[in-house]
């Protein structure tokens, strides 16, 4: 009951933050001079990519924790986080493409940042599909944990591509800080907060759901063994 209250409070906070983000993106922030209106995609594109990274980081930590403790709850956290990470990485890829068309005059280019992001996305999608093919729960969890740990190597590579290689993707965080005007920075930071809150809402809901599924399976086993 108390947990539900906290979840409702988190959902409420996310909703308020989302309204604030939409206000900042569509009303408050000035239109960028060179790209025009389409630059506003940036304020939800970057947070989507950020949530993808965060979700894969959580999966990485949960994977290590599962291998160390062999507690199924870490496996649940890891698998659900990967699921959410894939959803937000998909958003980052598609919105990036929709932004690239009017600014770079192409839907897609094999730029290092775009290519490594696509590789990251394909890796985790394959991982989730392969996971579902394993029937033994213990083996499934072990396999998934190892792949989450290995897969996380991709995340710093994606992040560093625009610093290590020649790319047309803009660099947002420089050694001098954010390369953004103050109102744009505020809008971006609020959107980052909103998407982070949204991630935790979805993770909470999915983890709770998987706990319920485990409880049902346990009850079924009990009923079967009693009969």
């Amino acid at each position, binding site marked *: 009951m108390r947990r539900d209250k906290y979840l409702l409070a988190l959902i409420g906070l996310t909703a308020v933050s989302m309204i604030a983000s939409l206000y900042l993106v569509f009303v408050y922030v000035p239109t960028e001079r060179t*790209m*025009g*209106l*389409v630059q*506003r*995609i940036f304020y*939800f*594109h970057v947070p*989507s990519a950020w949530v993808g990274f965060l979700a894969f980081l959580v999966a990485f930590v949960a994977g290590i924790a599962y291998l160390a403790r062999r507690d199924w709850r870490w496996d649940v956290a890891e698998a659900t986080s990967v699921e*959410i990470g894939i*959803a937000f990485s*998909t*958003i980052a890829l*598609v*919105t990036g493409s*929709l*932004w690239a*068309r*009017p600014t770079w005059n192409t839907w897609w280019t094999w730029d290092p940042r775009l290519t490594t992001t696509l590789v990251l996305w394909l890796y985790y999608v394959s991982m989730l599909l392969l996971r579902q093919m394993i029937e033994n729960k213990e083996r499934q969890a072990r396999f998934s944990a190892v792949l989450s740990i290995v897969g996380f190597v991709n995340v710093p590579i994606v992040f560093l591509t625009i610093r290590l290689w020649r790319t047309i993707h803009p660099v947002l965080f420089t050694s001098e800080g954010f390369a953004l005007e103050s109102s744009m920075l505020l809008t971006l930071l609020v959107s980052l907060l909103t998407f982070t809150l*949204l991630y935790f809402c*979805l993770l909470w*809901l*999915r983890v709770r*759901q998987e706990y*319920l*599924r485990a409880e*049902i399976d346990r*009850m*079924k086993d*009990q*009923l079967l063994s*009693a*009969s």
Partner: protein
Amino acid sequence: MNNLAYLFAAYAFIWAVVLAYVYTIARRQQALEKEIRALQQSVERNPQKRD
């Protein structure tokens, strides 16, 4: 497509993905609740089998 159309398409896609994901969560929740009801009914029908 003009700039506004790309902007609209991007935000429409974001909301579509988020809403579709929330919808799948809701569907899975409904299925779980249905399973719980079925389990409760089977326990009520066979009370001697409870431990």
